[in-house]
């Protein structure tokens, strides 16, 4: 058998999608060797004459690749010292035109992904926690694996426990520095994070900074779902093909998973990278779910108590608003929302009173107590007190009471205005007519319609365009394609017409 750079090959090279692999031995140890498809070193003068532009460009490309790969190898070695589940490259060299990456061979049989979902739940959670530890080690050195998928996680039994070994670091990159040419970004689209999908689809290298280690957390959620249920995580049925990164967490199909696990998924699948938990926090969240708790997610409606600094927040429709104890309790009762801490544990009113004291105002803002007594259609609104009103400025709400202005959560302010018969005014003293902008998915699609919200009047000129069997939302003059079912639901919710390209109204069956 041949030998390459001192490694005695055990077999011929096997071609794979990206390059080729073989096993080799050196110094009595067995290694997995990968032959990379690119770059290729211009060592053949018959093909790459010295001094030509092509040869110089290839040499520069190889020099850059070697420098970057050596930096990555150094970082990965540091990460490996923190977590021995990383099968990181041990050696890297080129022979003639080809580059080779060498890593330890993983010995022993590996579980198929289909078998993992059949393991006891405790084993599955153990695998997920261990995997999250691997990601945390990568996160600590700012490395993104970039190609998390079942075939790159080898589940082997070591010391009576199933351990997930993360392999294939060929295409990893530093956080914020994905390949400049988006076509060179590998990975499987069904595991892409929203920011990675956006980076690739927009082909704008300046957006590379958006792709951070949170991208791997998103991919890990998709991997965990497969481990838990044996099924791939898919968006809810839509017309046309949609990847997980193109939809909100609430629009995924979580069949086969319990509420606690789904809450973990939703947290890790947050559209905004900064809203996802850090990899180092994921094992703790898994433990919460394991004990029957739920994970706090930015898009779940709830009242959140942050114990560390005794702050309360109302989280509704993806927005977070600071709150007093009393408004939090009232809001929780009115909308049936749990008050939970960051670990997902429910917090009782008694506990809140113990933390904040009875009727003690706390939180980032304080504002007039919510109206007491029965509310609703039976109670006539109190007459307005002089010049009291609700101010809307830059989409923020303020109660102006006795000439004093206090900021307030929107829902509270509207409720208060209704109860006290206050006018709602903008900065000029006029009643604002501009509707609040819809929540936008970072990739541009408006948030899915809420079943509770009454349909808002359409902005003049908004409609749904139907062209060549495809559907587009035309909002504010801008056109965005959308799956058919989504477009129909959105049109129904917003009272939009369907039109063809000529502007003629279409009647939908």
């Amino acid at each position: 058998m041949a030998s390459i750079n001192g490694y005695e090959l055990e077999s011929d090279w096997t071609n794979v999608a990206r390059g080729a692999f073989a096993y080799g031995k050196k110094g009595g140890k067995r290694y997995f060797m990968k032959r990379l498809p690119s770059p290729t070193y211009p060592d053949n003068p018959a093909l790459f004459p010295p001094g030509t532009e092509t040869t110089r460009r290839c040499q520069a490309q190889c020099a850059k690749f070697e420098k970057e790969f050596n930096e990555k190898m150094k970082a990965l070695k540091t990460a490996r010292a923190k977590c021995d589940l990383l099968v990181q490259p041990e050696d890297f060299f080129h022979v003639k035109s080809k580059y080779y990456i060498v890593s330890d061979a993983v010995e022993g049989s590996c579980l198929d992904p289909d078998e993992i979902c059949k393991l006891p739940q405790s084993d599955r959670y153990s695998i997920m926690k261990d995997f999250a530890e691997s990601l945390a080690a990568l996160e600590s050195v700012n490395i993104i694996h970039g190609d998390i998928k079942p075939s790159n996680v080898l589940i082997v039994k070591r010391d009576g426990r199933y351990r997930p070994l993360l392999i294939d670091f060929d295409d990893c990159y530093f956080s914020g520095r994905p390949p400049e040419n988006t076509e060179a970004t590998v990975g499987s689209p069904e595991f892409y994070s929203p920011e990675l999908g956006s980076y690739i689809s927009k082909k704008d290298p300046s957006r590379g900074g958006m792709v951070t280690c949170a991208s791997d957390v998103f991919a890990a959620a998709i991997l965990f779902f497969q481990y838990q249920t044996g099924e791939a995580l898919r968006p809810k049925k839509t017309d046309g093909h949609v990847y997980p990164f193109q939809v909100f967490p609430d629009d995924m199909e979580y069949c086969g998973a319990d509420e606690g696990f789904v809450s973990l998924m939703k947290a890790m699948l947050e559209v905004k990278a900064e809203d996802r938990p850090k990899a180092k926090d994921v094992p703790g969240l898994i433990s919460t779910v394991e004990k029957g708790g739920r994970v706090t997610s930015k898009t779940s409606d709830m009242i959140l108590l942050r114990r560390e600094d005794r702050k309360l927040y109302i989280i509704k429709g993806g927005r977070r608003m600071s709150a007093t104890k009393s408004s939090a309790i009232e809001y929780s009762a009115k909308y049936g929302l749990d008050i939970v801490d960051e670990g997902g544990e429910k917090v009782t009113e008694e506990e809140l009173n113990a933390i904040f004291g009875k009727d003690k105002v706390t939180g980032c803002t304080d504002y007039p107590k919510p109206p007491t007594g029965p509310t609703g259609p039976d109670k006539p609104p109190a007459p307005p007190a002089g010049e009291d009103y609700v101010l809307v400025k830059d989409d923020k709400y303020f109660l102006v009471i006795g000439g004093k202005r206090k900021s307030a959560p929107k829902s509270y302010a509207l409720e208060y205005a209704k109860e006290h018969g206050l006018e709602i005014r903008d900065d000029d003293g006029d009643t604002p007519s501009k509707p609040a902008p819809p929540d936008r998915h970072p990739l541009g699609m408006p948030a899915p319609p809420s079943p509770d919200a009454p349909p808002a009047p359409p902005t003049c000129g908004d409609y749904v365009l139907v062209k060549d069997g495809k559907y587009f939302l035309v909002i504010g003059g801008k056109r965005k394609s959308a799956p058919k079912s989504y477009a129909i639901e959105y049109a129904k919710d917003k009272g939009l017409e369907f039109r063809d390209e000529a502007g003629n109204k279409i009647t939908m069956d």
Partner: protein
Amino acid sequence: MADDQEFDINLDIVLCMDATGSMHYMLDKVKASALSFFDNLKVELDAKHRHVEETRIKVIAFRDMTIGEPNEVSGWFNLPAQSADYKAFVDRLVARGGGDGPETAIDALSLAMAQDWVKTGSKRRHVIVLWTDAPTKLPGEQKMDDQLPKTMPEFVKMWQDPQEAKMDPNAKRLAVWAPNDDSWTFVEAMENTSYQEVSPDKELDELSMDLVIKFIAESV
């Protein structure tokens, strides 16, 4: 106007097939699988959870341009809509000619590289697949087409240099099934290529359209 939150993968495939007399068995395989080519490709892509928005295929049937045998080049066929047209084209191909051993395979590759490859899509794949049972002649030996590279460095530059090629440098993939011959060693010196040795005396038994389709699907 492009909708920038879409994510679509577009795939272009050029099949460079040796259509000389000795290659009739492989040509028969191509004809037999032509109508089901897209369906079989889709099965492979689905297994990898890859959704390709648009797929096109083109055929370059080559022989030996140095003895006046021109290439037969089809247009682009959109699959699956034009599967029947693709089949009609390959059905018309006849395994004939070729003369001495080496054929003008490199010139077929040059011609493939010069095609108008798809430029749209969030991700693109430009895949060339070539198979032959013979060594290849060098660029410049043929005089039928003056536009093709005349030297190996020119040919390599066409593949490697982003400004030269019409193919996206990171989207391009090349797979060659060819016999073990020095004339084919250049393949592995170029980036994003794959070379598989075949045995001409076994009628390229190692090669099937399933393998070709598998390679294409794995390239996406």
